[in-house]
């Protein structure tokens, strides 16, 4: 499999962010949570590379540390929906019949909900916080994965190698895990890459509506939301986390595109 240049670009970007996240303590110039009454809204300077925010915290250090939370939210936020969605989708697609009927009815009920509003309501029920955001995503976000996995499983179910495995007398769980799953993964993984971007964005949007991560966490979305009222007087507060968000989003999206190309499913 030849690495597509797009994938390499994207993967490099994501890798760089991962490195930044890992090495945050080394890269940061300030304590990302340390307030400084002497440096409120300081513009970018030698001391504060990206300026400082409304409580004097160093924006650069917060952007650096924010990468940890962004990756955490992005990755964890898609893993649970993916696992749930894959499981339901594969079972529904592979077995068909009443399993499929039930799964599809649940899906039918989830789909017409406006996605964002449902996440919002669930967060309202569970209370704010990243964990609850993950739960909300898991409860809502599985739908996309389930659809993809189901579509793949329906095709794979009647493919000759799955039939062959059945005529070898293998059990259904074994076939599902060993033969169907690996071959159903590609579109799901590609979708996941876009989903990571969306999950980070949705997290930010929740922050905008005041239901995101609690302060003083260095979360880009919350930083952007907080910095909004300073857009004319201290643009750097929201600009740099915004830029970071775009860069990581671009990384994942390019990775997804590249992956799609490599796996020849071009989406």
């Amino acid at each position: 499999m030849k690495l597509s240049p797009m994938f390499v670009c994207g993967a490099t970007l994501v890798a760089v962010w991962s490195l930044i996240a890992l090495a945050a303590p080394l890269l940061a110039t300030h304590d990302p949570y340390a307030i400084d009454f002497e440096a409120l809204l300081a513009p970018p300077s030698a001391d504060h590379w990206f300026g400082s925010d409304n409580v004097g915290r160093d924006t650069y250090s917060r952007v650096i540390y924010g990468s940890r939370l962004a990756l955490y939210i992005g990755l964890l936020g898609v893993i649970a929906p993916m696992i749930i969605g894959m499981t339901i989708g594969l079972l529904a697609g592979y077995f068909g019949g009443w399993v499929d009927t039930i799964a599809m009815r649940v899906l039918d009920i989830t789909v017409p909900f406006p996605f964002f509003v449902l996440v919002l309501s669930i967060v309202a029920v569970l209370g704010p916080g990243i964990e609850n955001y993950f739960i909300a995503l898991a409860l809502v976000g599985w739908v996309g994965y389930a659809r993809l996995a189901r579509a793949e499983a329906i095709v794979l179910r009647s493919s000759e190698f799955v039939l062959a495995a059945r005529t070898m007398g293998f059990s259904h769980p074994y076939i599902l895990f060993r033969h169907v799953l690996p071959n159903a993964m590609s579109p799901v993984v590609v979708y996941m890459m876009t989903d990571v971007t969306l999950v980070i964005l949705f997290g930010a949007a929740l922050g905008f509506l005041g239901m995101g991560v609690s302060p003083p966490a260095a979360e880009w979305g919350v930083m952007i939301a907080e910095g909004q009222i300073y857009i004319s007087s201290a643009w750097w507060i929201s600009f740099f986390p915004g830029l970071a968000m775009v860069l990581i989003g671009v990384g994942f999206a390019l990775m997804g595109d590249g992956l799609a190309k490599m796996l020849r499913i071009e989406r």
Partner: protein
Amino acid sequence: MNPLLSVRNLFVRFGETLAVDDVSFDLPKGGALGIVGESGSGKSVTCRALMKLLPTTALAKGEINFDGQDILGASEATLNTLRGKRIAMIFQSPASHLDPLMRIGDQVAETLRKHTDLKGRAIHQEVLRLLDVVRIPEPERWAQAYPHQLSGGMKQRAMIAGALACKPDLLLADEPTTALDATVQKSVLDLLVDLRKSQGLSMIFVSHDLGAVARVCEDVIVMRKSRVVETGKTREVIDAPQHEYTQMLIASHPDRLTLHTPQPVPQATPLIEARGMQIRYGGGGLIDILTKRAGGFLAVKGADFTVQPGETLGIVGESGSGKSTMARALVGLVKPAAGEILFEGAPAKPLGRNRAAYLRDVQLVYQHPYEALSPRMRIRDAIAEPLRRHKLCPAQEVPARVADLMAQVDLDPTLGDRLPAQLSGGQCQRVAIARALAMDPRVLIADEVTSALDVTLQAQVMDLLIRLQKERGLTMIFISHDLAVIRRLCNSVIVMRRGEIVEAGPTGQVFDDPAQEYTRTLIDAIPRLEAAHP
């Protein structure tokens, strides 16, 4: 007289790969030239180059002269005045070459609209005439139909109608009969032969089947690995092939293969027996249950047959006849609606609790070599899988057994680490067979295992099966739409049509003296090398 088409030193290159390597030929007006070769030999690329219908990645060099017009050097605009009007083309799989969203009539009319001044009513009349020419019954009705509503043969006729619309001087036919059933294949070939006469067509006919080419063309060129290996009059090439490869090609043709008639071990109880087997697809929906109807579609309408140990039973029939469905019922992939299957005289339950034990004795090998293996599993693991899962041998012996199985099917042991996509079709089919053999079955059901392979590979796989049967005393059920293959391998045969067994008996008897008209049509439709133009 100048030839209608003259090709000189044609090269086509895709990146590093040379797809057509120095091909030259002439086609006189009114002539028919066949291009024969196996997959990847460059025959189709050559054919498409004649219309400069190549992907943008292709680089074509050389000279193609059509009636004084240089094709390779022509502009796209010039080419578009030739394509469809003076040179027309028909393709292999009519299903994918017709736009699924457009009515048949409109697709035929497209050429007319583009290249003639006909309008409205006149176009409609002309479309109906063309459909009639290609012997589509009720043209009025089918012109309104969409491609998916037509049978494969009808689709191909519709495509031919489109190609003939502007009375082209040259018809390029790129494997036009390959995906069709034998009887349909024959009728399409007959149509082409007729059209040549009635319309004065010149034709280039590309096929992997020398028999089909022999029926249509007086001249033939044989291609292999992008190069022309032999050229000549069809008759002469068939009768006295010069090149080694051509010789092999001809020798591999089912027509020329030596018959193999294994003798069944006489025994009181047949190894496998089917009694009144009925198989239904669909149905069982809520409405069906409520109305106490069976619903769905009956794919097999009650089949009885027996297979003696050591026997090879052939099941033959056209697509949709229910032959594969029956095979799948034997290994429990579909559940018969009625009837029973006996194994060694005892009721077998391919779907029951002991299915693993039953399946150890009865194995199925599938049609499409690449699809029958998980694309993400190395072939060594694929072969080892049944051994490991069913603990058929101690774990430490698995590698040795795998090597042994690979040797049995003539697979190079170094291929073990490859993925299916890195193998050829023939190799994949061997892997599939080795995998089935790993179970050490007593019955091997081969479902169209040779159909997707080139003739030479087809012959090799058949040889392999014959050898295995001899060595292991296998009982085989061999399913194919290809009567020639069945005749070679089987000692008894069942002919199926629309879910019913219409004829059954010893191979020799069925082939030499068929009791049913249908069987006779099938036998007549076998492309034969002998049928070549004199």
